[in-house]
């Protein structure tokens, strides 16, 4: 079973990404910096620029479309769609669970995929969870982390948002290994990606608005959340989480 169009499929996406990245870095060289550099974010100046671009994209394009979607589709439908997208990614999670030497997670993922794709009607429903099969969202960025590869500095990607060099590689590898580009035309797989993103945005309209509204420095709030969240995912199997001395004791 040789996948058709495996080679050419994701390439235009990467090419587009590079062009956008170049355009933005050229455009934001006058971005302001506030405060001294955080050790986790040596590229803050560039990142703030990209972040501002992403925020603009969200404000003028993504959020309005997502709002339209939210208006048209009832929430249960959107949640069902989210389940469908999530289910279609399980093969990737399965592969990454194996690469991270987590056989139990891999078997659970596989079982989830079989159950939800069949009884769950292509993944729009999630009977697997009712059977006690838990989801494990292992991606290649985490796999690299488990293998001991450092994350590198915080990096905001145009369009894709918060990341770091390790997770960027992970994102690229995972999108190469998605099932869609092998079996369906590029425009269809691209639409699925966009659809998933819009659906997610539509489900999070209020939440993101509240975060934006509440933060004193939204850029820093997002950076901290991303770094903590990813670190937490990578170390999920490790029991001893006692490295927060600095956080909870001031002496």
């Amino acid at each position, binding site marked *: 079973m040789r996948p058709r169009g495996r080679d050419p499929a994701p390439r235009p996406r990467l090419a587009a990404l590079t062009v956008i990245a170049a355009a933005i870095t050229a455009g934001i060289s006058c971005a302001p910096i*506030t*405060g*001294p550099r*955080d050790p986790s974010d040596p590229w803050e100046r560039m990142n703030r620029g990209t972040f501002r671009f992403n925020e603009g994209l969200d*404000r003028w394009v993504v*959020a309005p479309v997502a*709002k339209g979607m*939210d208006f048209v589709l009832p*929430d249960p439908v959107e*949640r069902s769609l989210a389940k469908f997208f999530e289910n279609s990614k399980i093969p990737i999670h399965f592969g990454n669970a194996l690469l991270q030497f987590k*056989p*139990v997670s891999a*078997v*659970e993922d596989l*079982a989830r995929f*079989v*159950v939800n794709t069949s*009884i769950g009607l292509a993944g729009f429903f999630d009977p697997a969870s*009712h*059977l*006690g*099969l*838990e*989801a494990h969202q292992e991606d290649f960025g985490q796999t690299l982390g488990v293998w001991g590869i450092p994350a590198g500095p915080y990096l905001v990607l145009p369009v894709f948002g918060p990341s770091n060099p390790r997770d960027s590689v992970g994102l690229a590898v995972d999108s190469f290994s998605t099932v869609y580009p092998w079996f369906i035309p590029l425009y269809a797989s691209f639409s699925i990606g966009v659809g998933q993103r819009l659906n997610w945005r539509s*489900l999070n*309209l*209020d939440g*993101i*608005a*509240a975060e*934006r*509204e*509440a*933060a*004193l*420095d939204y850029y*820093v*709030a997002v*950076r*901290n*959340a991303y770094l*903590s*969240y990813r*670190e*937490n*995912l990578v170390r999920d199997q490790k*029991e001893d989480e*006692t490295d*927060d*001395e600095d*956080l*909870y*004791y*001031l002496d």
Partner: protein
Amino acid sequence: MTKTSITSTERRPQGLLRLLRTATVVLVALASGFAAPGARAMTESEAGARAVISETVDEVLAVLRDKSVPTEERIRALEQIVYGRFDLYVMSRLVLARNWKRFSEEQKEEYVKEFKQYLTNSYGNRIERYDQQEVEIIGEREEPRGDVVIQTKILGGEFEGALVDYRLRKQDAGWRVIDVVIEGISMVSNYRDQFKSIVSTGGPELLLQKLKEKNAAGMVLDETSAKSQPGNSDL
């Protein structure tokens, strides 16, 4: 830990499905057997902290469920419940960390007050979004220096399955929450990073000024968002 519990409303799984389920249950049981050799009894500290969280969750959910009470009143009720079990002074200090010393006594007092108001504004507005979620306590862990972390999970609604940890510290008055960690994202750490960047740019004055601005704007927003439809407040 309750992977094996199947509710009676479910239809009996057939053939392959049953096999899969059995296989998973066995694997999960094996895996947890390796991970946790022998069930460990809860320590006294863990039991004490757990009781505080369990009470707080019950009281908060009771307020959230009763939608007949006006929003403003429910926010006040939640403040009473939550701030009674949170050590805001410790939290405020941990958030400022080393910068705490840069604040004068009056500034410290002002900051603790403004930070409290800021938390109320940030989270109070969200109570309209409550949608019949439940909270399950899934574990507890005593940290080396005596703090206790209570692990909970949200059931139902848009945050189904989200993990929320509460870190508690023993004070004279009892166990008090000093941090809330949602999916690995610590409130204290998140505010610390934000405030650090502000204090290092403009000192304590700038942080106090920004908090006051936010709080003033937040209260105006409170009134408008109570009147408008949920979802209209975006952007």
